[in-house]
């Protein structure tokens, strides 16, 4: 079974600054995806970024980038130039890749990020 751990319950950052959210996971699988999802107070779970385990290059999406350390089973999210709209709960999630249909997502407990004006 897979586990995802987000040990920081809350973080705060000044607008325009950079913040890094941590995530570790445990799995015996070799082929998998890792995701960061954002859930603002509106409740809508929004996909932020995806990383394929077989890719050594870290994924980047505009102001969002990850630091994927496969051997250490670490997957952190860096948000650059933080904006007020980044205020939300952020979840790290794991998905095993199989030969069949889509696999389930296993989520961490989440971290609440507050961006201060």
């Amino acid at each position, binding site marked *: 079974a897979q586990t995802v751990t987000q040990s920081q319950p809350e973080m705060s950052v000044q607008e325009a600054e950079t913040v890094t959210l941590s995530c570790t996971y445990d799995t015996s699988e070799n082929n998998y995806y890792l*995701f960061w*999802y954002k859930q603002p107070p509106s409740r809508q*779970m929004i996909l932020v970024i*995806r990383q394929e385990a077989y890719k050594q290059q870290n994924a980047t999406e505009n102001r969002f980038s990850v630091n994927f350390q496969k051997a250490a089973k670490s997957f952190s999210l860096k948000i650059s130039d933080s904006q007020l709209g980044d205020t939300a709960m952020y979840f790290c999630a794991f998905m095993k890749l199989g030969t069949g*249909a*889509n696999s*389930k*997502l296993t989520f*961490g407990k*989440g971290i609440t990020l507050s961006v201060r004006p």
Partner: protein
Amino acid sequence: DAGVTQSPTHLIKTRGQQVTLRCSPKSGHDTVSWYQQALGQGPQFIFQYYEEEERQRGNFPDRFSGHQFPNYSSELNVNALLLGDSALYLCASSSRRGEQYFGPGTRLTVT
């Protein structure tokens, strides 16, 4: 292109009652997964439907059941509601081996 839609938005039920939640997947997606999210927690996987069959199931009792229709939409049914079933229920759709996109959720309150 409509994203994932869920209905209703909010629901209040009494212990022992039954409830049905509905989900329409994003256009082009054929797989629907259901998650339960307790307040302040991460979502927990309930089950997944593909080709109108339950393909995977999480650690939830048989009181939780589902269905997928030929148009790929899905229902989640919960029987004999308990207070602990109060949560946000999220539906996610995906294409095969693809990313999961979530709907806005249904907030269920059991009194």
